[in-house]
Every structure is written in C-alpha cells, then in structure tokens.
C-alpha cells in the first residue's frame, strides 16, 4: 500500500515505520505540534485528529491506518481560524492553558458533522473522552451549543 497521507490537504509521504503512532509522525516528523500528547493511552483526547472526517486518537493510531487517507489536524480545521467552533471557542473564552483544546475542538467538530443539533447529553457522550484539567467544561458545553446554533443559521 502506498504510504502517502493527505495531511491538511497536502500529500505527504510517511517515510517512517508503519507502526509509528500518527501522533508522533505529526509532531516529531512533520512538526505539526498543534496535536498534543497527553496520556498516550487514548484516555484523554488531547491527540484527537480526523481521518477521513472521523475523530481518532492519534496516540494509539498507527500511521499506516492513515495511508491513502485524508488527515485533518487542528492546523487544517480551517485556513484562518474561521470554523464555527473556533469562533465559538473565542466567543466563550474557553481556553485556560489551552493544551487540551485542539483535541476538544476536533472531537466537537466530529460531533457537529454528524449531529448538527446536539443535546447536552449528546455533547457529554461525544466529549467525555476529552479531559481538561483547568476545568473549562462549562464553557466547552456552551461553545458547542453556540457553534451548532451559528451553523444552523448559516
């Protein structure tokens, strides 16, 4: 199989061992550091990216799982920070330290792409794998509801 991955729209050859986690290929090889290492066991969601539009935990996803596919990271979610979730995150001043927020936003983007009008319980179900230690959960909830609203109006 070809080891080419389309990353944020750019075809990229993954000249690394197939079992290398996608996270470290992104961070160390490509120096796309927006995707974070938090816990390394799919426990915290800081490393969340999309493969063909589906949210995955890149810390436990071998790079080979993305061969021939399209990967979107926080750097590629929008070209100019204009994704409704990014705007809603700013409107609600969600981030404190911000380290988990790329993963939070990527998980939320996956949720809204499948469920444009989520209930609070549905937000909880989709977001419970993303940990924030600063305690921004109340604002994350509000921001996702705001983004859903603005996408409806758009």
């Amino acid at each position, binding site marked *: 199989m070809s080891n080419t991955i389309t990353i944020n729209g750019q075809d990229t050859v993954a000249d690394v061992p197939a079992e290398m986690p996608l996270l*470290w290929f992104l961070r160390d090889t490509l120096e796309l*550091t927006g995707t974070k290492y938090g816990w390394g066991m799919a426990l915290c969601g800081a490393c969340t990216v999309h493969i063909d539009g589906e949210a995955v935990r890149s810390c436990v996803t071998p790079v080979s799982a993305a061969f021939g596919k399209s990967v979107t990271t926080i750097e590629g979610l929008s070209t100019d920070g204009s994704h409704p979730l990014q705007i809603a*995150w700013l409107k609600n*001043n969600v981030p404190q330290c911000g380290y988990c927020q790329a993963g939070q936003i990527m998980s939320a983007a996956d949720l809204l792409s499948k469920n444009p009008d989520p209930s609070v319980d549905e937000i*909880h179900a989709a977001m419970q794998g993303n940990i924030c*230690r*600063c*305690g921004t959960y109340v604002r994350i909830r509000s921001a996702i509801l705001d983004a859903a609203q603005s996408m409806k109006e758009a």
Partner: protein
Amino acid sequence: MNSLLSNTSLNRRDFLKSSGLALGGLTIAVSFPLGTLAAGDEAGFAPNAWLHIAENGDTTLWCGRCEMGQGISTALPAAVADELEADWSRVKVLQADGHKDKYGPQGTGGSRSINEMLEPMRKAGAAGREMLVAAAAQSWAIPAAECKAHNHQVTNTRDNRVMGYGELASLAATLPVPADPTLKTREQFRYIGKPLQRHDQAEIVTGERTYGADVKLPGMKYGAVRHVPVMGGSVKSFDASALEGMQGITAVLEIPRFEDPYGTVGGVAVVADNSWLALEGAKKLQIDWEAGPHGSYETEAYKAELVKHVEAPGEKVFERGTPDQALADGTVRLSGTYVGGHLSHSPMEPMASAAWVTDDRCEIWASTQDPQGIQRTIAALLGREEQDIIVHVMMAGGAFGRKFQCDYVTEAVALSQAVKAPVQLTWSREEDTRTGYYHSCSAQHIEAALDKDGQLTAWLHRAAFPPISSLFNPTVTRPGEGELVRIIKHPYGIEHVRIESGEAIAHTRIGWYRAVYDIFWGFAINVFTNELAEKAGKDPLDLYRSIYANNKDPEQVEAAQRSLAVVNKAAEMGSWGKTLPAGQGLGIAVHHSYNSYTAMVVHAERDGDNIKVLRVDCAVDCGLVLNPDIAAAQMEGAVIMGLGFALRTEVRFKDGAVINSNFHDYPVLRIQEAPPVINVEFIGQDYRSTGLGEPGVPTFAPALANAIYAAGGPRYRSLPFKAGA
C-alpha cells in the same frame, strides 16, 4: 550504547535555606528596583524592561510571570497598556526569559503575581506615558499639562494636533525616566476591570500556541526517562539488550540522582530520533531498582498513623487564652477528625523541557513556573553561573504548582550534555503520575465549644502532614509554625485557641499543589463548623455570621468582615434556605486564603452513592478585579478541580512507590460530571487587587460535603470522600 552519564558536579549544594520560598503559602512582600534595565538595544522607546514601542508604533509588552492558563500574561500587560494609554490592538505580549535583575522575582505561585506585580507594572506603563507626553510637549514647545495621551497618541490640547506613539518613540527614549509617575484613577481605566480577551486565545484555537513540549531545535533528539520509583532509591542495574538493533536510538543513559530539592530522583533515559522511539525504548528497559529507606511507605497505614498522632496531644505551636478551660466550660462541645490523601497535579502537558548544552552555553526552553529556580538548579548541576543559564519560559500546558520544581529540566540538561545535541525530554504520563511532588496527605483533629450564649469560644486544632519543608530539609519531622500559619490566623478570632502539630515524616517528595495546605484547612474547618451548627441546633449560615460578627481580634477586623460579606453574598446567590425535593441539599463554605476570600453554596443531588452537582454559586472578594472573565474562569476551574478530588482522585503508595499510573486509575473529572451552572460574582472591589489562582480551590469540597449531608447523605470527613474506594 550503554554509556554511563557521570558528572562530577552532581554534589549537593547548600542552598536549601535560600530556596525555601513561600513555605506554607506565606506571602512575601517584594520590592525591587524597576526601570533600571531597558528591554533591549533596538531602536525605539524602551524605558524599562516591560515595554518597547517601535518607531512604527508597534508595542511589545513583556510578562515576567509565567503563564499556565491563569491568564496572567494578559492581566498584567493589560495593566501596563492601560497606564501607558496604549491601544491594545497594537500590543504584542511576549513571555520574558528568566532574568532576576530585569524582571524581579518570577516564581509564579502562591497566587502572588497580581498581589506583588500589579503596582510595579502600572508604574512601568505610567512612566512610559509620562515620557511620551514629555516628548510631545517638547516637540510642540508647550507645557506637558497641555498634552493629553490617549489610545496610542498624544494630543495637543491647544490646537488638537496629534502625534502617534511611534513618532514620539525616539525622542521619548532620550528623556529621563520618572521615578514616581502618576497612576490613573479608577474611573480612567480602559482595560483594568474589563473582560479583555486573552492575547493568545486565537493562537490556541488554531493550534499555533507552542508549549514546552512543542519546542523544535536543529538536530534535536528526543528523550524519555524511567525514574527511580521510591524517593531515595537508586538504579541497581539495568539491561538495555532489548533495544539492540532498534534503529534511531542514540543512547541509553543512567541519570544519577541530583540531591537538590528541584533536582532529580534519578533513573534511566533513552535518547532517540523521535519521541515514539524514546518512549518505546524506555518501556523495553529491564531495570533493577534499589528501594532505599522509604521502601515500605504505604498510604493507608500512614494515614492511620497520622490520625493517631492528631487524636493524641501533639507539639504546641500556638496558644491564646485558656483553651482547656474554655473547652471544659463549653455548653456545646464537638470533636472531629478529618483526613486527606495525596494528589498529583497531572497537568495535561506532562513534564517537558528542551535543553541545549555546549561547553560555553546552556539554553533551556521549559514549561515552568520558576525560571530563576531553573537557573539556580542548573547552575549548581553544571557548576556554572546562574546568569549563564538561559531560560526561555514557554507556555505551560497546565502546572498547578508542579512546574515550580524543575527535575524534568535537570534531566533534559543532563541528556543534552551527554549526547552533545539539543534534547527535548517529555515524560510519559506514567512517569508524570509516579514521579511527582505530591500534595501532602493529612489528618486534622478539631475540638471546639460554644458557650451558654452560643458563641464559639474554644478551638483546639491538631494537624499532621508531611510538610513541603521536608523537601528542603529532610530532618523535618512535622509541620512547623510557618506551615500552620493559616489556622493560627484563621479569621474566626476565637478567644481560646491552641494549635498543635503532629509527627509526620515524609516518605515521598511533597510539593505545592494549587491552594496547598488550604485544601485541608478549608475542608476541615468548614465541615466541622457545619457539624457544630447542627449540634447546636443552628443554621450553619447563622453560625458563620455570629462567628465573624463576634471576631474581636483587632488584627482580623477586615478579614472577618470580608469573610462575612462573601458568605452572605453566596447565600443570597444560592437562595440559601430554599426548600428542595428529597435527595437534594444545599451546602455552604467560606475560606480566606492568599489574601482573597471565596464562599460557595453548592446545590447537590444524591442517589445512593451517585452524586450530582446541580449548581454552584460563588461569591468572591479578591479586591479590584483586573479581568472579570479570566477571574471567573479561575473559579470555574477551582470548582472542577475540587469536585475531582472530593469525589475520587487520590495518589496511593505501596512499597514506597505510587500505585496509580494513568487516567484510568487517577480519574480526574470529565465533562458529563461538570455542574450545569457555576455562577461567580465579585464583591469588595474597593480593596486592592489580590490573586485568584488558588483561593477558590479550598472552598468547593467542604460545601459539597455539606450539601450531600443536607441531602440526607453521609457525613464525609475525608478527601476524597470515600477514601480507598
């Protein structure tokens, strides 16, 4: 491949006394000369280390305190910009490198940044404004009084001509720096007190904000380490044969213990071409550990010992009046024992630092709360001068007190020196969980009495916990007066008081965890006060009110009044006393710490062991609020963190080592458990500004414990509520 890293300078250096800062959360008054060093040599206007205005008007402000999400790198520069009359949209904020002479003390903890730095920062901005005005006055040959600075320009009030700050920069730079510039009055503030957006939010939501773990350098290698699991233990031997043949491994190295409070416990490290190889390589190492003198530490047994120590007479630390007599004479008497477990800070970004050491240079990029601590520690490690250790302060992906100590930097430096290349060291989550500077476990015993008039007249408080001072002086066997100061000075103002300290020898490294000892003071005092109210047949709010109203200690008048005001405000916000359905309850708590005051009313629901927080109302007095949105976020975070350690999280030891490893067994709070509503209101804004990074943390857990009891649940006297569950 198995080269052994050895370094002859790894000897203990006797700076323990000087580095024992802020033990027990004491606030240290700071004064240092400002404006002696300019920002740099570049053209433009740089009257002091905090600001630079280029000839095109672009303005750079430096933040000397470290950013870890608390918003200080917005709040303090915004105060400079306000006094400078700068246009915030023209301002770029940079994080200052470690530099004592330029930036004064930079250690960021104890909720001290605003308390210590607000006035110096305002003066720095005001000095700049006065110089720009003076430059304009000189250009127009009119008195300065007839020039007015506003929004990045100065207006000639005679003819309404204007000159921009950029135009004025070169001339202003030639003028004397005023020693005592005039500060704005509150009505003149444009940014202070306003919900200005943090300067870095847009970078965060696009993934551009770089943290300590994100630093990339030319030719950089990546490190991973496995630490000695027991304090004082060592590496007996290790076998790296499983790594043979692995491509991309640079070196396997033993890192010796560096006997320094901020040093390293030692371990074995793998340096490789990327983090994955380093982490995988470290996992494959076979290491034989020597446990050392603390190899039998076991938390449950230890906490039981602490309980014994506080339920028997201890060492008297403070006494006022005749507490034994007053207890004996009391009409209502109560005693209670409260226990708390170790906590791990577990910031989302594990310990991470990049270091590049050459024969004549040492440069460090670190997520840190204390760049000067790094300079001190690494200078000792390498046998170089502190000012030769260059520390770039990176955004910390959470810290909560953990990144005050720089063991991870020590290790990155040792690895870089050994492999002669820049090294980025990121700890695995397991190492982060197991190699902490933990929040101390604790036991407290309180006995108190109300007299025949229902007044709280006697209070005996015994506390035992391994104190942070044990980190700096291993012969410490119990908390001392400095570490008990907040119960000595607790604003209850009781007439007859005795504070006693119980033995508690440290068997692990103890550090500052957000709110430090106030977590256990706030919990025990508030739960006990609610129990006392129940025993006296009083509403707890009424008991708080009568205690504060009767505080006759002249040194505590203000603290008692402000405590009373926040507890009244929280009660009002949370509709204290309202009727609730069965299974629901309201709980109340108030705490004064780090010069600020917080009170909370928690509305909780219980269904068996299942606890749900429905609403939290927080009343806060931290004086004048610099940025209400950032301040409210600190309180929301305090509630979430408090809920986590109330319900579940505890670091436990067995055979001297931490049992927990990752989030599955250190289950911090997730979104579905976060309260639907957290209301925050600020009062007392006529007082001077004080910090809010920590003061909310001690208040939530006791308010929740009281709410659960009010809802018909058990009376929880430990943190977490169900210890060992």
